[in-house]
């Protein structure tokens, strides 16, 4: 049976990339869910563009503190050792290379790792937020997104047609169908969703995929 990963499962898979002690920034939307799936035994420090390092889960309190939010406007909980700073300092940290991993949503990723994640047709007033800064500054950019649009149009493309966030920045793409690594040789298909084959996923991908020698099913 073919399975498409749901958003929670994509986030869970993405969170497995968080190494112990890493500093991680989670983008707007689906990436935010990763906060709940830190692999056991690992410490991860979440950084938020507005100006916070080391926060915990999304708040489940009845009385939430709306002055304690992540960059996606969600109230979060405090953790010992956390700290607050202004947004200027926050982006020094981001551009200065102190974010080990950023997880971002995307509309399109190209075979070279170009990222388009902020503008789409019909919504000319949306903006790039901190995406460009994060894509340019983070050591590793992980994209989580659905493999195709609702209409079945591939999002992993030869060249982005949506406005770019940054060129050649993406390292790993995690979708509802596959885990794809961006390499110098091209896009390497590393893992498949349960029940899916390489030709089936290639068929839903505009860019050419290279099957990894150890291509396997996504372990969850």
């Amino acid at each position, binding site marked *: 049976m073919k399975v498409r990963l749901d958003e929670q499962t994509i986030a869970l898979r993405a969170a497995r990339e968080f190494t112990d002690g890493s500093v991680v920034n989670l983008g707007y939307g689906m990436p935010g869910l990763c906060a709940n799936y830190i692999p056991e035994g690992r410490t991860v420090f979440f950084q938020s563009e*507005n100006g916070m390092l080391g926060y915990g889960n999304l708040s489940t309190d009845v009385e939430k503190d709306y002055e*304690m939010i992540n*960059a996606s*406007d969600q109230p979060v909980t405090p953790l010992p050792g956390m700290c607050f700073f202004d947004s200027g300092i926050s982006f020094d940290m981001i551009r200065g290379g102190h974010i080990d991993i950023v997880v971002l949503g995307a509309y399109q990723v190209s075979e070279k790792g170009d990222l388009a994640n*902020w503008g789409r047709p019909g919504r000319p007033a949306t903006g*790039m937020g901190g995406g460009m800064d994060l894509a*340019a500054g983070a050591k590793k950019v992980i994209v989580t997104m659905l493999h195709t649009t609702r209409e079945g149009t591939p999002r992993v493309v030869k060249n982005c047609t949506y406005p770019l966030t940054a060129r050649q920045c993406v390292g790993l793409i995690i979708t509802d169908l596959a885990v794809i690594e961006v390499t110098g040789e091209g896009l390497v298909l590393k893992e498949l969703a349960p029940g899916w084959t390489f030709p089936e996923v290639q068929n839903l991908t505009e860019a050419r995929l290279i099957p990894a020698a150890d291509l396997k099913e996504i372990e969850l």
Partner: protein
Amino acid sequence: MVGGFGSFAGLPVNLITALSKQGAKNLTVIANMGGVGFELSKRLKPGGYNDLGLLFENGQVKKFIGSVPALGGMPPDSPLEKSYNAGKVEIETLPQGTMAERIRCGAGGLGGFYTRVGVGTIVEKGKEKKVINDKEYILELPLFADFALIKAYKADTLGNLVYRKTARCFNPIMATAARITIAEVDELVPVGQLDPEVIVTPHVYVHRIVEVPR
């Protein structure tokens, strides 16, 4: 300039409301986000709150400069997005960190800076580029405002400010980059009550204080 980051935290909601009543027009507003308006704000905070949407609804703004004029994850119903689609307001979009640095650049009396953020994207359009140590950079120029409306937690009567949690965000840097800075604070305390080690905004940057107890 109007402080805050996105939603409620750090937004000087009472100063925004006051500005909407005062009625000044043809404003250029520099803020991270364009606001969602009272209705959509209920999705971000129970009960909702007044944000910059109020000024766009009133037609007080001719130009908005910010990194998130409208949220892609929200319906296209924010007052700014509707005004923009109706051709009533101009928008200049810029990366969030570049915005922060342009504000600091203006505050620090500098002429501009080079950044790699936005290289190869529409952000570089019309901007000077320069290769430094084999890497391409974009020249970005300072931002400085006539007025900064900001939100702080406590002020002393001299104007020294401290902030609360992520309500700090853009407020301390905007406070330093305006001719007149007006701070809305939860609590006004006598001089000497704020620890000199923890004051975030020194009083030389603060020109008016409005205390609005929670």
